[in-house]
């Protein structure tokens, strides 16, 4: 039973300016759950994209069922029995479940023109029943919950007769009960001789579900182990290889006076009686699971979304009109979660992005004083160490870290007294992260208030002066980062009382 189903040998892959993988070996057995772990940017996704045909390796070979294979596209890999379930699902929302499961390979009637509708619904019905879900094959995908969509993706893979299922952070989108049933399904797939490659960075889960674990770091193989031969601490050490404390600057605060307070703010079902106070010269960390209302909170404070009841005071004044334009002129800045969509104007230059919110200040009548604009832009580039060939470079060609610095510089330029940062370091490499953290500290020392929303717990603990934990639209409590552990935060974030020794703890990196 436990024979090798796929073997990857000496895989290397480079991208311009980055060696993503360096001679990595990886293998997976039939009837095994093999976890693939590592920090962001360790090369997990790249390795799996090579296996699933989305990328081609520069060097190395893939042996599948004893034969060397080379895939030119994901469909080739699918035909050979390798299916991937990505974090972002490959489902068309306006088609129904069965139509999605068979998309691209519809069963045809004997004549070969029309779709065999009976088979179209029968097969998925059987598969979904085997998965012990109650999803009806005729329901439209957009009406399903995220967890149900994940089930549909699994059903789709099984319908393609996949022998190897690659699951990219499946637990990132489900929790609690849904996660239990996901694990039950993974276990039954393993018992049926399928190979499951489970990408995750939650250590607890790996010990719960995986037989073996392969650790990658900076594109290199650290090792492959049986989960029973290693403990949590050992695994973390393999993954990290350095202590987080080095990254974070010491916590110095600036002058402290109340700048923002919320009193019983409610917004439909997303925010329930949220009250908080934010002082200048501090970083207030707000954390919680997906859907806990943290991003909604940020948008309400900034005025991007309305709130229904409650009061918001800024600098001691009650805010009546609540619009982004007013927030900006009052000195509130917002570094959004998805910088590509909401943070900058993609095809404008660094200069134009830097000055986009202070155009009122640098115009004569209705014309922009370009000389002054250029001076400001040059000053920012120097001051914040933004790596760009020149200020006329379009911002989309900068690295993520530098894009983020441009966005931050933009708000600082506008004399923001309060800057809201939603997941400020997402998708930024470690070096740029440290630089960004230093910049945040510098701001705070100068008396700016920072509201940092983050789901990366080391960052929350390492950067915040105070931590608020949200769950289900409520603020569950405040923690002191010098005492709080990641477990404490997660306990609150999952809505369990502090003394209740809950079972759903996930250590997150």
């Amino acid at each position, binding site marked *: 039973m436990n024979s090798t189903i796929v073997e990857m040998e000496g895989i290397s892959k480079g991208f311009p300016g980055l060696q993503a993988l360096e001679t990595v070996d990886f293998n997976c057995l039939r009837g095994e759950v093999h976890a693939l772990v590592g920090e962001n940017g360790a090369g997990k996704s790249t390795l799996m994209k090579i296996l699933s045909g989305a990328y081609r390796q520069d060097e190395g070979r893939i042996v599948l069922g004893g034969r060397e294979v080379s895939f030119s596209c994901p*469909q080739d890999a699918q035909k050979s029995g390798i299916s991937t379930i990505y974090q972002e699902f490959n489902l068309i929302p306006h088609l129904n479940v069965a139509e999605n499961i068979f998309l*691209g390979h519809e069963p045809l009637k004997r004549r070969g023109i*029309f779709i065999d509708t009976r088979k179209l619904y029968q097969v998925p019905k059987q598969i979904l029943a085997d998965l012990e879900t109650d999803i009806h094959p005729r329901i439209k995908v957009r009406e399903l919950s995220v967890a149900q969509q994940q089930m549909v993706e699994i059903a789709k893979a099984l319908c393609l007769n996949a022998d190897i299922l690659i699951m990219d952070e499946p637990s990132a989108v489900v929790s609690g009960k849904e996660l239990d049933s996901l694990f039950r399904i993974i276990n039954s797939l393993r018992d049926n001789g399928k190979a499951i490659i489970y990408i995750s960075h939650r250590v607890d889960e790996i010990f719960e579900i995986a037989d073996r674990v392969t650790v990658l770091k900076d594109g290199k193989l650290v090792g492959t182990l049986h989960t029973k031969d290693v403990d949590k601490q050992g695994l973390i050490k393999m993954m990290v290889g350095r202590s987080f404390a080095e990254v974070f600057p010491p916590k110095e605060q600036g002058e402290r006076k109340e700048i923002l307070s919320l009193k019983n703010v409610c917004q439909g079902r997303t925010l329930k009686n949220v009250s908080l106070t934010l002082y200048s010269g501090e970083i207030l960390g707000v954390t919680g699971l997906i859907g806990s209302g943290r991003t909604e909170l940020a948008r309400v404070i900034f005025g991007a979304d309305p709130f229904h009841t409650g009061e918001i005071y800024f600098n001691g004044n009650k805010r009546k009109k609540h619009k982004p334009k007013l927030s900006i002129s009052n000195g509130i800045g917002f570094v959004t979660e998805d910088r590509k969509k909401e943070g900058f104007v993609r095809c404008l230059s660094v200069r134009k992005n830097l000055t986009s919110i202070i155009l009122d200040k640098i115009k004569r009548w209705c014309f922009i004083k370009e000389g002054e604009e250029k001076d400001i832009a040059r000053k920012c580039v120097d001051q914040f160490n933004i790596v760009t060939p020149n200020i006329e470079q379009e911002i989309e060609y900068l690295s993520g870290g530098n894009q983020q610095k441009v966005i931050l510089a933009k708000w600082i330029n506008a004399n923001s007294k309060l800057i809201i940062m939603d997941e400020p370091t997402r998708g930024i490499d470690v070096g740029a992260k440290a630089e960004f953290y230093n910049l945040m500290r510098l701001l705070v020392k100068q008396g700016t208030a920072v509201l940092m929303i983050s789901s990366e717990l080391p960052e929350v603990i390492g950067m915040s002066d105070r931590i608020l934990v949200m769950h289900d639209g409520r603020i569950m409590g405040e923690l002191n980062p010098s005492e709080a552990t990641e477990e404490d935060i997660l306990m609150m974030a999952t809505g369990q009382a502090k003394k209740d020794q809950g079972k759903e703890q996930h250590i997150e990196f």
Partner: protein
Amino acid sequence: MNFNYLKQNWTTSIVYIILIALLLVGSLLSDMFRTSNNLTNLMRQAVALGIVSTGQTLVLLSAGIDLSVGSVISLTTCLTTGLICGRESMVFPVVTLVIVLALLIGFCNGFIIVRTHVSPLIVTLAMMSIIQGVVLLYTNAPVGELPSSFGFLAWGMVGLIPFPIFILAAVAVAAILVQKQTPFGRYLFATGGNEEIARRSGIRVDRVRIFVYMVCSLTAALTGIFLASRMGQGDPMAGERYMIDSLIPPLIGGTSLMGGRGGVVGTIAGTFILTVVSNIFNLLDVETYWQWVMTGSIVIIAVAFYGKETA
């Protein structure tokens, strides 16, 4: 099951309920409305718009748009009458030629769109201009004539029912079958819903898009041939109004301009809603330009309604 279907497709059902309501309103407002003369007239009026809108719907489903249909209609009308020129023997070769030509234009539309990645709006708008120019070079006044037998297409009766309604029915049924029962139809929805996912599912998106523009051009050609038969002469501006008008029934029927949503069933209802409204206005002697005001209002209300529903 039947009830379930209604529930799942309640937007489509609503369009049909509105159509039935309009028919009732029409018969209340005017005694003329119910006369068989008026009803056959009404059906005949719906045919041209219905055929071309069906093709347009399929393009819209793929998240495209075809603005060249109007000039393709003008072209096919003029060529049909101009080349046949009253000779019975020329009917078959000319009709074949016209259809092949339309398919070629559709192919060009699709091919340019998938190769250059220029927006369909621009490509087909440019194509509209090119073809309209060619038509006006060919003739700038109504042209040609047709053998009397050709008139059957537009004016013939089968029992109490005007013949052209069968053409519309055939086109609509074929389109619905393609849309609902063939992989190609499924791929239209997938492409329009999310092109990237469609591609990742192994669908040859480019082929789907080229093919759907060909189908749309084909429906425009059928409309052109039908209009030739109705008017007996080829008017170089005959198709002009269909550039925009062909979009209206799909929009009323619940097809999204963003693609991936809607379908031909709703479009047919949309066609008849427009035709009935215009018919009622005519019977009540309301000035034609009020119809424009009305049509625009209907479109805004319908699209706002769907937008809210599916946001």
